[in-house]
C-alpha cells in the first residue's frame, strides 16, 4: 500500500528527465538546421511585409478601441463587449498598460435539467433576499406566481416536451479593468506587476500578479516566471443554494468565495531568423465555492425517465489545473504562420487538447487577411452526470454542466486588417482597423451510455454554436 507514491515519484522524475532531454535534442537539432546560422546576413532575405510595421516600441503610445458582437444559436447567449485600452512605452523601456471592458449579456442558458417527453415547469426565487424587487423580471417566458399556502412569490418557466430546458431569464452586465506595468531591472531582466477587477450583478473578481523575465543568449532566449492570486465572490440573485437540495422558490444562503493561485513558467526562443517558439507550463489551484448556483440536475425514474425532482448541483471545493502550451510564429517571406498546441489536465478529470493555426497573408499595401482554424477536445469531469436516478444513493458530487462534459469544438474564422496610415515601416503615427469573424461549434454525443429507456429518444447534448464579430481600431504615435 505504501509503494504507490514513491513509484509515481520515480515515474514522474524519469518522465521529466526524458522530456528535458527530448526538448534539448530538439533545440540542438534546430540549431544545426538553422539556415541563418551559416548564411550571410542578407542571403535569401524575405521581403518584409508591405503592410507590416517594425517600428521600435520605445517611447511609443498605442490607443486601441474595439467591440465584440457575440451570438449563440437557438436563442442562447448574446453579448456585446466594447473595450478600450492604452499602452504607454517609456523612453527607459518601462511599459504601462490599461484596459477597460464592458460586457452586456442576455439570452437563455441550459439550467442543467434533462429533457423529457412532457413539458417541465421550473420554480425559482423571484426576489433577492431582503428585497421585494424582482431580480429577473418576467422576461424570457417566465411568469411570477405566488406559492399557495406560503405567500412566497416565485418565478416559473415552462420547457416544452422533448426540449433541453433553458432559463431564458439570463441577463448580466460585466465591467472589468486590467492594469499592468513592466520595467527593466537589470541587463535583460524585466519585472512586471498587474492587477484586475471585474464586477457583475452577481459576481466579483479581483486579482494581482507579478512576474520576472530574463533574456539570455544575445536576446534569443527569454525565461519567465509569474504568479497570480485571484479572489472571487459569488453572490447569486437569490442567494447560494445548499447542494443537492430541491430547486424551490425559497431564499438561499449567503454569498460564497473562492481563491485561485496560479503560476506560469515559460521559455521563449528565437530558434532561427524565421522562427519564434514559446513553451509555457501553467499550474493553478482553485479553492472554495465552484458550484454553479443556478444549475440543477433532474432526478429521474430508472425506467420511464420521468423527472421527480430537480436538485441543485454540487462540485468539489478544490481544483488543480495544469497545462503545457507550445506556440510558434514562423515567417515565410511576407506571410506569417501562427501555430500552437495546448495539453490540459485537471484534478476533476478533464483532459483536453487544443490546436490553433492561422496564416497572415498581406494582399496589397493596405490589406492583409488571416484565415484561422482551431480544434478543441475535452473529456468529461469524473462527476459529470446527465441526470440522477431516483432511489439510488447520491454521489459525492454531480454536475450536468456541458462545459464539464465530453465534447469537441471547431472554430473557423477570418481576420482582415486594413492599415490606414503607416504603410511603410517607419511611418508614425500609424493606425489600423481590423475585423475578425469566426464560427464556433461544439459537437458531442446526444446521449449518455446506458441511458434509461424512457429517455432513449431525447437529445442531451447542449453544446454551443456561436458566431462572433470583432471590430477593432488601433493607433500608434510618439
Amino acid at each position: 500500500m505504501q509503494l504507490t507514491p514513491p513509484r509515481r515519484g520515480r515515474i514522474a522524475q524519469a518522465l521529466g528527465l526524458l522530456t528535458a532531454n527530448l526538448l534539448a535534442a530538439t533545440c540542438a537539432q534546430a540549431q544545426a538546421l538553422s539556415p541563418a546560422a551559416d548564411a550571410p546576413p542578407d542571403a535569401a532575405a524575405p521581403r518584409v511585409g508591405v503592410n507590416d510595421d517594425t517600428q521600435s516600441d520605445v517611447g511609443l503610445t498605442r490607443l486601441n478601441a474595439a467591440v465584440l458582437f457575440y451570438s449563440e444559436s437557438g436563442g442562447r447567449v448574446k453579448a456585446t463587449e466594447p473595450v478600450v485600452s492604452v499602452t504607454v512605452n517609456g523612453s527607459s523601456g518601462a511599459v504601462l498598460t490599461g484596459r477597460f471592458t464592458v460586457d452586456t449579456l442576455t439570452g437563455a442558458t441550459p439550467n442543467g435539467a434533462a429533457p423529457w417527453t412532457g413539458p417541465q415547469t421550473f420554480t425559482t426565487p423571484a426576489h433577492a433576499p431582503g428585497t421585494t424587487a424582482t431580480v429577473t423580471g418576467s422576461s424570457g417566458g417566465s411568469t411570477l406566481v405566488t406559492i399557495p399556502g406560503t405567500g412566497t412569490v416565485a418565478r416559473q418557466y415552462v420547457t416544452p416536451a422533448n426540449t433541453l430546458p433553458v432559463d431564458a431569464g439570463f441577463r448580466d452586465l460585466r465591467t472589468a479593468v486590467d492594469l499592468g506595468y513592466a520595467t527593466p531591472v537589470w541587463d535583460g531582466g524585466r519585472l512586471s506587476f498587474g492587477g484586475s477587477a471585474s464586477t457583475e450583478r452577481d459576481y466579483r473578481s479581483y486579482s494581482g500578479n507579478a512576474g520576472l523575465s530574463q533574456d539570455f543568449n544575445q536576446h534569443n532566449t527569454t525565461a519567465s516566471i509569474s504568479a497570480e492570486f485571484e479572489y472571487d465572490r459569488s453572490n447569486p440573485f437569490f442567494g447560494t443554494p445548499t447542494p443537492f437540495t430541491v430547486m424551490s422558490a425559497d431564499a438561499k444562503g449567503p454569498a460564497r468565495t473562492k481563491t485561485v493561485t496560479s503560476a506560469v513558467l515559460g521559455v521563449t526562443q528565437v530558434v532561427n531568423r524565421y522562427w519564434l517558439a514559446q513553451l509555457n507550463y501553467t499550474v493553478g489551484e482553485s479553492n472554495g465555492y465552484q458550484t454553479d448556483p443556478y444549475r440543477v440536475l433532474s432526478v429521474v425514474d430508472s425506467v420511464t425517465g420521468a423527472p421527480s425532482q430537480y436538485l441543485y448541483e454540487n462540485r468539489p471545493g478544490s481544483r488543480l489545473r495544469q497545462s503545457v502550451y507550445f506556440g510558434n510564429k514562423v515567417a515565410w517571406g511576407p506571410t506569417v504562420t501562427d501555430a500552437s498546441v495546448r495539453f490540459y489536465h485537471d484534478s476533476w478529470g478533464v483532459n483536453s487538447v487544443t490546436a490553433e493555426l492561422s496564416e497572415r497573408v498581406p494582399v496589397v499595401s493596405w490589406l492583409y487577411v488571416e484565415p484561422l482554424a482551431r480544434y478543441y477536445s475535452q473529456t468529461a469531469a469524473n462527476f459529470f452526470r446527465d441526470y440522477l436516478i431516483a432511489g439510488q444513493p447520491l454521489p459525492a458530487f454531480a454536475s450536468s454542466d456541458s462545459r464539464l462534459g465530453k465534447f469537441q469544438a471547431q472554430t473557423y474564422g477570418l481576420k482582415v486588417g486594413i492599415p490606414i496610415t503607416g504603410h511603410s515601416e517607419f511611418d508614425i503615427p500609424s493606425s489600423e482597423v481590423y475585423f475578425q469573424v469566426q464560427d464556433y461549434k461544439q459537437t458531442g454525443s446526444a446521449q449518455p451510455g446506458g441511458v434509461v429507456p424512457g429517455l432513449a429518444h431525447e437529445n442531451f447534448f447542449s453544446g454551443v454554436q456561436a458566431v462572433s464579430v470583432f471590430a477593432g481600431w488601433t493607433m500608434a504615435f510618439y
Partner: protein
Amino acid sequence: MQNDGRRRARARAGLGIALLCVGGILSACASVGPAAWDHDLMARKSMQLNTHPDLMAALEHSYFSKEGASGGRSFVGGGCGCN
C-alpha cells in the same frame, strides 16, 4: 486527506518536471538562435506572440466561458462568474 496528499504530490511532480524542462531547455538552447543582425524579422509586428491583445483577451474569455480548460498562454483564472 489522502486525495489532497496525492494531488499535492502530483502538483510537485508537475512543477518538478516543468523546472527540469526549463533547465534542460535553457542549457541546451544556450547557443541556439541567429546573430543580433538577423533579428529583423522578429521586429515585425506580425511576428509578436500577441499581435492584437484586446482581440486575444476577448477570445480567451469567450473560450473560458464555454470550455472546461483554461490557461496555457497565461494564468488559469477567469475573472468572471461565467465558468
